[in-house]
């Protein structure tokens, strides 16, 4: 069985780390700081010196957020929908990640005029810090945000298969995440937009038959498992050669190892008739979007 990241090429972003520009690279399911040595050693050194290392702060943020389902709410639903905040405008992840954070704008029309004080801004809560980490990672650029979404989606797909204890609480968020990406893909593919054209997306188990049909009322109904996000959408295979992709698996050699040169797809045409298998073959190993 192939690793979930099969077919996802490397992604790389450059960040300001203290006085230098450093590279963060995602490859084969792991985010690394290329311009630093062993992260544990560097953390220990930085702690001794009382300084923070932005690259390591981002690695730590990745470790904490790689199963945070909110990445699927905040992150891109596909081309044409991208978070576009400049990380330089965000509150710092850790002291030194950047300087000059903009003061929050306090709202309301009834404040304490306290002699010797100023209006107190909303507190920076643990949840606020977690959201800040997510936004930093999603807005880093270089495809890192897309890889975070793929990682979170793959993690929760695995948890669904394994019957993970927290799945029931997370299921509405997972269903909405699937709905959002299927709806965005179908709208662009079929050219049907507006609230009246919203498809009905049913979240099915991984082994159930996948389908996209048009009902008698004209409404498109899709039945797909949550796996579709990591397996198809995150890999840029949602629409291939003008056809909607229901399922994708890497082509393997005779021993069951992925050969890196193609995909076996189940696709459906715009008339939403019977799904058909297809094979997508590359001249070389798959490259990132």
């Amino acid at each position, binding site marked *: 069985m192939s690793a979930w990241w099969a077919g996802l090429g490397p992604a790389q972003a450059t960040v300001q780390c203290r006085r230098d520009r450093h590279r963060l690279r995602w490859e084969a399911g792991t985010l690394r700081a290329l311009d630093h040595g062993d992260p544990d050693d560097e953390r220990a050194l930085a702690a001794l010196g009382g300084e923070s290392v932005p690259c390591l702060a981002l690695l730590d943020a990745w470790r904490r957020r790689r199963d945070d389902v909110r990445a699927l709410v*905040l992150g891109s639903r596909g081309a044409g929908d991208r978070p576009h905040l400049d990380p330089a405008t965000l509150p710092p992840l850790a002291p030194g990640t950047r300087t000059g954070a903009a003061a929050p704008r306090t*709202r*309301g029309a009834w404040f304490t*005029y306290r002699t010797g004080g100023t209006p107190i801004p909303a507190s920076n809560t643990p949840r606020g810090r977690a959201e800040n980490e997510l936004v930093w990672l999603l807005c880093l650029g270089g495809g890192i945000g897309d890889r975070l979404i793929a990682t979170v989606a793959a993690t929760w797909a695995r948890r669904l298969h394994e019957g993970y204890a927290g799945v029931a609480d997370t299921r509405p968020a997972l269903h909405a995440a699937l709905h959002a990406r299927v*709806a965005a893909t179908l709208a662009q593919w079929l050219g049907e937009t507006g609230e009246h054209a919203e498809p009905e997306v049913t979240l099915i188990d991984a082994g159930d038959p996948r389908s996209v049909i048009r009902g008698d009322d004209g409404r498109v109904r899709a039945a797909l498992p949550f796996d579709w996000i990591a397996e198809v959408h995150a890999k840029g295979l949602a629409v291939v050669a003008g056809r909607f992709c229901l399922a994708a698996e890497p082509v393997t050699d005779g021993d069951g190892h992925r050969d890196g040169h193609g995909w076996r797809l189940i696709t459906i045409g715009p008339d939403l008739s019977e799904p058909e298998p297809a094979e997508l073959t590359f001249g070389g190993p798959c490259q990132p979007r």
Partner: protein
Amino acid sequence: MHRSDAELYLRLLGERRLAVGDDDLRHGHDSPLHEAAAALVAVGAISTPHAQAVIDDYTLAAAVRSEDGHRQIGWQTRQRPRRRRPGQLRLSFTRVVPCDHVIEDATGTTMIRYVALGRTGVSLAVSHRANVAAGRRAGHGRAFGGMNVGSASTLPWGAPAPTLADDRGHTASPDFQGSWSDDSADGTLTAEGLSPATRWLELDGTQIMLDADPVASDVSLEPLPPMAPGEWYLWRRIATPGHFGGPQQLDPIIDALRAAGAIRDGDPALDRVRAVNERMPHHHFGPSGGAPGTRGLPEPWRSLLRRTGRAGGATGTVVLGAATPEFDGFRVGVFAVSSTEDGFTADVEVTPGHVGHLGAVSLDGAELAWWARDDRGNHHLGSSNGWGSSEDRGHGELGFWPALDRRDRRLELMPTGPTTRAVIGFELPWSAAQ
């Protein structure tokens, strides 16, 4: 409706609004998502924390797609559920003393209307009117609503921060809380550490006697007639219109209630609710803006809407110091009621408080509707003119419409909770003078 179905309903609504680039989604407290969430919480389809989490998610999702969304990252102010400890709700004051004390200085005229004394200290209700001839200091940083509060050692109108003293020898420097503009300020000067039993206060050396009695009031509780949760919630939303007033956008609320099975298509209650909502004024004073005609509307709405825009109220202030027992998890205190030509206001305190955006419908579905009823059978509705709040207490000024009639002899304020309303009744002293 199962909790997960309600959460999915909200998330799909969030996805729909996000897909069309609805900028209102960024203002989580004021978005269609918030309205739907509050409705689902009110009918028990989802808990407040679960609903709030969905709102937070989509507020942030909209923020990261906007040019200035970085201002919201990590800094959002969320509503927190009120902390209700039955039997432990205490108002801040134990007595309220009428006090028409006027201070003239170079900055203008400051009137102290009443003094509230209690466990948390002493509050002086003040109104300041600027001395125009004295001019205003340019660049002092004052603006209505309290942005750019300016110098720390002065009051908003430029006077030095005063010193308060009691008859026990205690002294304190009060904070100002309220609203102000270049020309006027209205609010309270509040100080801790002064005795609630003091017979007088000294304000920068001027003694203010605390020996007058407030107007007598009677306080009772009345249970509300039972009503289906969906219909109850719709009436509640019209009666608690938020900061800007006006008719509600009922459709997202009705859709959510319908999805939860709390109201059905064809329910005659929907026609009644819509008919009232269409007639709600866009502004509470002057021309209504709402649809005309009140025939067939149910009370209390009919008498309220029949007199929309009506002016001609008597002018005067009643200092009450009334306090309700606990009802629906609240206690309410009323310091004073002031009537003008166009309407009337009430200075009130509510415990527990409420942390969230001003004017936002509360997610826990338990905010008070502020009704009033005069002795001629007319109803009046109040909403916030200015409000400050912590988790323990909220306080501020409520503005009621329409104006009182000069023939009114008695008024009842009726803070109304989900199941019970308090009735605070008192005679209008100016009616005896007429």
